[in-house]
């Protein structure tokens, strides 16, 4: 979707705040939201659906509210959309559900247990598919001219641009469909774009931008 999240190459966002202190959380609520996001997910949710729900936040909120605030908003939206919580319950500040159909209440995990869980949560997204990859390392390719109106991982700035296959990563879960609940694998490549191909002011530059792109985003150049 051509949303506010697709920020690569957009201008006017000003200088970077480089001097922030290095503590992981600057406010308590940021840590709470990080923790909530780690231990609560609806069944059947995919990372791509969650990302898409974050992209769908109203532009003024997406840009104007703090980062972990947008995670909380995304969590609210995914739970409400799946029917787990309601807006009435948010207003009431408690569950209004008559039945308890949520199973056993979540148990308390210790530090040791969550560290183990973090290690076990090294999720792989690759898988075997029967069709061989279409493109070879070193080959020139052109990125699609258009994205799609749902979730996609082809940024606007690379569309219709010429690149070179730098590496082949194997077949990875295709995000555009995973955001709709369908998990299929598709060949995924690292594509190198010359900065001069991407930006008018980079005409003489030797710099390069690498993107990891799925096969259906690409065509032979």
């Amino acid at each position, binding site marked *: 979707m051509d949303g506010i999240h697709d920020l690569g190459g957009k201008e006017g966002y000003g200088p970077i705040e480089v001097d922030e202190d290095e503590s992981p959380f600057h406010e308590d609520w940021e840590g709470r939201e990080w923790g909530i996001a780690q231990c609560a997910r609806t069944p059947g949710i995919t990372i791509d659906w969650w990302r898409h729900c974050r992209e769908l936040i109203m532009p003024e909120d997406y840009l104007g509210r703090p980062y972990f605030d947008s995670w909380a908003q995304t969590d609210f939206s995914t739970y409400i959309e799946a029917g787990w919580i309601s807006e009435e319950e948010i207003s009431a500040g408690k569950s209004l559900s008559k039945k308890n159909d949520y199973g056993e209440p*979540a148990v308390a995990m210790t530090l040791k247990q969550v560290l183990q869980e973090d290690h076990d949560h090294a999720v792989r997204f690759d898988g075997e598919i029967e069709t061989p990859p279409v493109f070879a390392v070193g080959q020139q390719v052109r990125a699609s001219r258009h994205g799609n109106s749902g979730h996609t991982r082809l940024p606007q700035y690379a569309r219709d641009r010429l690149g070179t296959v730098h590496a082949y990563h194997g077949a990875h879960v295709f995000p555009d469909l995973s955001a709709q609940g369908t998990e299929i694998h598709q060949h995924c490549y690292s594509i190198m774009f010359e900065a001069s191909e991407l930006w008018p002011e980079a005409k003489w530059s030797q710099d390069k931008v690498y993107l990891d792109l799925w096969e259906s985003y690409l065509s032979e150049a």
Partner: protein
Amino acid sequence: MTTDTKSPPNFDAGKVAEIHQHLHSHLPSESALRVKALETLLVDKGLVNPKTIDAWVEAYTEEIGPKRGAMVVAKAWSDPEYKARLMRDAPSAIDELGFLGKATAHLKVVENNDEVHNLVVCTLCSCYPFSILGIAPPWYKAAAYRSRAVRDPRGVLLEFGVDLDVDIEVHVWDSTAELRYLVLPQRPEGTEDMSEQELAGLVTRNSMIGTDRDLGEEIEADG
């Protein structure tokens, strides 16, 4: 709306856009209160346990952070065979130190040298190799960095105090898939006698993202 059944998402983007509009008007305006409202409700429903949230905060405050990445870099500097394994198969190599975890199953290491400087960004969201660098810095997740890193990397580097020679190529890695990138900075000169632990102390978080480069500056100043 019934809330009696655990149901999977319907993947209805139109519905979610509508929900966001409602939440825009109906949630408290302060972030702390919004997150409190979410936690309160999820705890009341038994979906999350507040002690588990405590444990995740502690894990990413005390245990998991850029110190892990620094140890990997120092080991790669000290042990050529480890470096070869790291460049070939980073997830396995970091798992030798117990650091494999969230968002690092498809980790790639990109190495700086005299000709190339690497810079990592996620222009579409905020992808970051959590289990090895911890929580991403606020600037990494902000619009200014995400928009400019791919288009004006040298200007970005200058704001971080890195004045890159024109002869050094910048390679920007935009994390558009589930691959995550870790920059292997150059080992500073004059550190031949240092232990791995001492070397790890020289490695900054930003140098592993690519917004820092010359780690030897402090040694030269001290010498």
